[in-house]
């Protein structure tokens, strides 16, 4: 079977949707030249208006996309760095997200916000290394953090076709992930549906984005000692509560590994949902960034602040 990389999956999803639906267009900074590679080849194929290179005016072009969406278009915005989402939080959380309710359902805002290279990019320091998916979940904007190329393809296609705003995080450490795929089998992946990435009996590890791969590696390492089930929610909001609960009810134990800051982060929500719905046989555990973390530059410091395999392994060993 041919290999598909995560980055190529994004490119393929965009080109398939641009091809399929003339309402779709992509906008963002340096997307014509495809500086991030996500839009490689698309400008040549689809032209200026459907691959719209923008000046550095994030707030205006984010609202611009909302305006276009109100007229029936399906804009996809590529953001160059994750912290730009802070700059346009108003435009997404307070504008795009609120139009449907505030107008009594008169309109739809089908905009997709893609951040290729979210989280730590290794060596890019404090202002380029955030992973703010919990923020969008908190305000109720549909938010996905796919882990694999097939899911990246399927969730991007779904996000574009969805009639609401969707924020799509493509974690930097996942962009190079490759997997064998049957191209003909690439298909939309529904929002709000998680996936058991590895079945097990003793403990559920919830992991998403690049951390899924770490969780799977740790589960492998523990094979024969601890039977680890790995659950990938794929969508942060709306969360697949049924899938999560089914897994934890089976195992009775929970560890969440999450690249958010700890307080009010995604892992906290997972723990709360599980506490409300399941009886655990051991206290749950979170492996996260520390409270209020800012990623320091030096490599050892950057790594010290990010959740990783060692902490997950330690948590699982301690629990068993």
């Amino acid at each position, binding site marked *: 079977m041919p290999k598909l990389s995560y980055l190529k999956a994004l490119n393929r999803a965009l080109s398939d949707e641009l091809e399929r639906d003339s309402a779709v267009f992509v906008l963002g900074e340096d997307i014509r030249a495809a500086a991030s590679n996500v839009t490689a080849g698309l400008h040549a194929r689809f032209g200026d208006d459907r691959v719209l290179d923008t000046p550095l005016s994030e707030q205006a072009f984010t609202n611009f996309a909302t305006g276009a969406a109100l007229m029936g278009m399906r804009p996809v915005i590529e953001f160059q760095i994750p912290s730009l989402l802070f700059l346009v939080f108003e435009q997404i959380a307070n504008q795009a997200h609120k139009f449907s309710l505030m107008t009594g359902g*008169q309109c739809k805002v089908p905009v997709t916000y893609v951040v290729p290279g979210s989280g730590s990019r290794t060596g890019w320091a404090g202002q380029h290394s955030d992973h703010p998916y919990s923020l969008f979940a908190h305000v109720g904007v549909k938010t996905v953090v796919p882990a694999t190329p097939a899911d990246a393809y399927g969730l991007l296609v779904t996000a574009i076709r969805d009639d609401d705003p969707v924020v799509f995080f493509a974690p930097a450490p996942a962009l190079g992930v490759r997997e064998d795929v049957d191209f003909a089998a690439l298909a939309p992946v529904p929002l709000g549906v998680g996936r058991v990435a590895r079945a097990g009996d003793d403990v559920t590890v919830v992991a998403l984005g690049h951390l899924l791969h770490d969780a799977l590696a740790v589960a492998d390492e523990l094979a024969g000692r601890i039977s680890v089930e790995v659950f990938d929610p794929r969508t942060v909001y709306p969360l697949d509560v049924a899938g999560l609960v089914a897994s934890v009810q089976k195992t009775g134990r929970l560890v969440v590994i999450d690249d958010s800051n700890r307080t009010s982060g995604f892992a906290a929500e997972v723990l709360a949902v599980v506490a409300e719905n399941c009886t655990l046989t051991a206290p749950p555990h979170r492996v996260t960034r520390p409270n209020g973390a800012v990623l320091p530059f030096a490599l050892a410091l950057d790594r010290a602040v990010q959740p990783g395999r060692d902490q997950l392994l330690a948590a699982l060993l301690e629990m068993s």
Partner: protein
Amino acid sequence: MTDLYRTVRLIRRFEERAIEFVRSGEIVGGIHPYVGQEGIAAGVCAALGPDDVITSTHRGHGHVLARGANPARMLAELMGRESGLNKGRGGSMHAADFSLGILGANAIVGAAGSIATGAAWAARQQGRDTVAATFFGDGAMNEGMLLEAFNLAALWQVPVVFVCENNGYATTMPVASAIAGSITDRARAFGIPAFTVDGQDPEKVLEATSTAVARARAGKGPTFLECVTYRFDAHHTFEHRTRLSYRSTEEITTGRSRCPVEIQGARLTAADRAAVDAEVESLLEAAAGIALGSAHPDPAAALSYLYAGEI
């Protein structure tokens, strides 16, 4: 001529009634009265065609009414009723009627300009002949996002008319203390033709907007209109209770002396004017009856319409 008068008169009387409903508690949260600025909404909207779109502001009742929204449904919206334009989910600062191209009033100062720019750009992509008119105040001229929108609109020759309602104040902040340089020069810096218009005269506004709309339809891009006006009433009705002192009595008297309703009314015969006034009164009387008689939304449906479908 009569149409412009009907519009300014309708807005004026609508606002006066709305203020009464704020006082009586039928409208919760208060309103930003448009009193004194009616000539701008009337003139701009009279220059638009059926496929055009507008965006509005926190002080938006006039724009929405001038664009043809049903006054009963508008009033019902202010009262938070199910029959309101937004089914009571938007209120004074968010009135929208997509069937009339009213893409919504926006409570964030300076936000709607970029939305309108995107909407007009999209309509052009779709092969439509749509022009967007976007209203904002002098205060919005200091919002970076709006200046970014000027750039995008000029760069891509988007068919949008930027309508700045310069009423002299952003809440209590006078223009002179807030804006370095001139308002129109800011637009000109982006290569956008910019004109200062007497916002108290609906016919002048109509004329200037018609030129701007024709330019936009001809593919020549955005125009900027600074409509000079005066806010006769409070920034917001909360000011009726807490008198803020930032304008002198003399200034208010001078400001009110040029009234768009009087200016346009003087162009009609007394009989015609009286006929329009009577028509407006009975329309608003009926609207008030309908709005007051409308059902309140069911609290169980408080989060209806949050998403396009079930999630």
